[in-house]
């Protein structure tokens, strides 16, 4: 069966308008009309969704390009009214902080352990940690893919200090912080975790960023202020 009409007619119908909308060929006025119908006409909206799924196959043709660092700050400013932040380092001594962090991590590790007992081990997972700290403008996000053993960290707000290094630490339970390396770029820094360290990264583990002399902590333990910290969550 063929629905292709004879040569002298323009095929029409809602389904084609939906396809044209998704394809993006319509003029401004026609697009506005189609957008309005998506809001008000569920049948039409479903046609649009189906074409979107079909043409989604071409989405791989859009090459990812890292966006400039300032954009997320602007988005936050528009949505939440937070000032586009600059890094003014609060030097609260970190001993009390680290103790509190270790305790919190311990509690979370126990909860996590309890959960492990009742749940079968799952397939490779993703973990996310949103790292922030009081009095610090730095907000970072870490995403870990268990399959590739790669941890990607992005500074989404605040600046990296020009004359210091930001060092990333993993704190598992009550163990001492383990250095994962230095942030190299505010866009995305990728850390490849050795097996022994990767095994410690799970729901409830803490990640933290501290300010260190250029090149990283000379002692192998954090020495400077913690500008962001957060708990790892499986998603």
């Amino acid at each position, binding site marked *: 069966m063929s629905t292709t009409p004879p040569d002298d007619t323009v095929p029409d119908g809602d389904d084609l308008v939906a396809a044209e909308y998704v394809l993006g060929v319509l*003029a*401004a006025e026609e697009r506005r009309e189609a957008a309005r119908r998506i809001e008000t006409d569920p049948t039409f909206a479903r046609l649009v969704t189906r074409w979107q799924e079909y043409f989604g*196959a071409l989405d791989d043709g859009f090459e990812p390009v890292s966006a400039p660092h300032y954009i997320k700050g602007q988005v936050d400013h528009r949505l939440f009214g937070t000032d586009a932040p600059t890094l003014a380092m609060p030097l609260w001594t970190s001993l009390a902080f680290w103790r509190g962090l270790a305790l919190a991590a311990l509690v979370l590790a126990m909860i996590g352990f309890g959960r492990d007992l009742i749940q079968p081990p799952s397939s490779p997972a993703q973990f996310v940690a*949103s790292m922030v700290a009081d009095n610090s403008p730095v907000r970072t996000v870490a995403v870990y893919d268990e399959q590739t053993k790669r941890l990607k960290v992005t500074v989404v707000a605040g600046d990296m200090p020009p004359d210091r290094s930001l060092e990333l630490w993993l704190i598992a339970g009550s163990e001492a912080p383990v250095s994962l390396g230095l942030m190299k770029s505010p866009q995305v820094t990728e850390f490849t975790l050795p097996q022994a360290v990767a095994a410690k990264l799970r729901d409830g583990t803490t990640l933290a960023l501290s300010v260190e002399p250029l090149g990283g902590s000379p002692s192998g333990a954090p020495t400077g202020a913690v500008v962001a910290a957060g708990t790892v969550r499986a998603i």
Partner: protein
Amino acid sequence: MTPEGISELISRVSLRDRAAFDALYASTSAKLFGVCLRVLGNRTEAEDALQDIYVKIWNKADRFAVAGTSPISWLVAVARNHCIDRLRARKRVSTDLDEASDIAEPSANPEQSAIAAGEARRLIDCLDQLDAARASAVRGAYLNGDSYELLAQRHKVPLNTMRTWLRRSLLKLKECLEG
């Protein structure tokens, strides 16, 4: 990140979870910036558009649940629609033509090399069954946001002819996809 992971983040964003929004931005902004650059072909405008797009995503995240699409398709659709609306708001088509010619075509057809999933394969196969010029018009329209007006100019045919031409291609595509 897996589609399930992205879905979960979008759902949490709809519940006003800022940490999830940060994570969603971190894991998807490069893809959506790629969409903006490709469609708008202008870095400054693409940067503006990307901001608008994430504001929209924050405000419209609750719509994702009812959209029923895969999370990446949904995000790309939000980005593409915003960029195409911007493109259409530009005044002169000739400007579009000049700028469109500056946009580099992706080398070695990455959309083909990168696609593996069956659904995706099917669209590519069905596109291949179209006449080559028509398939490339469809692909170009999707990736570059070409308008009927621009396509008609490029192919040197009246706008209505272009419309008939493309609609026939879409009908064939649909028969193939659903056949």
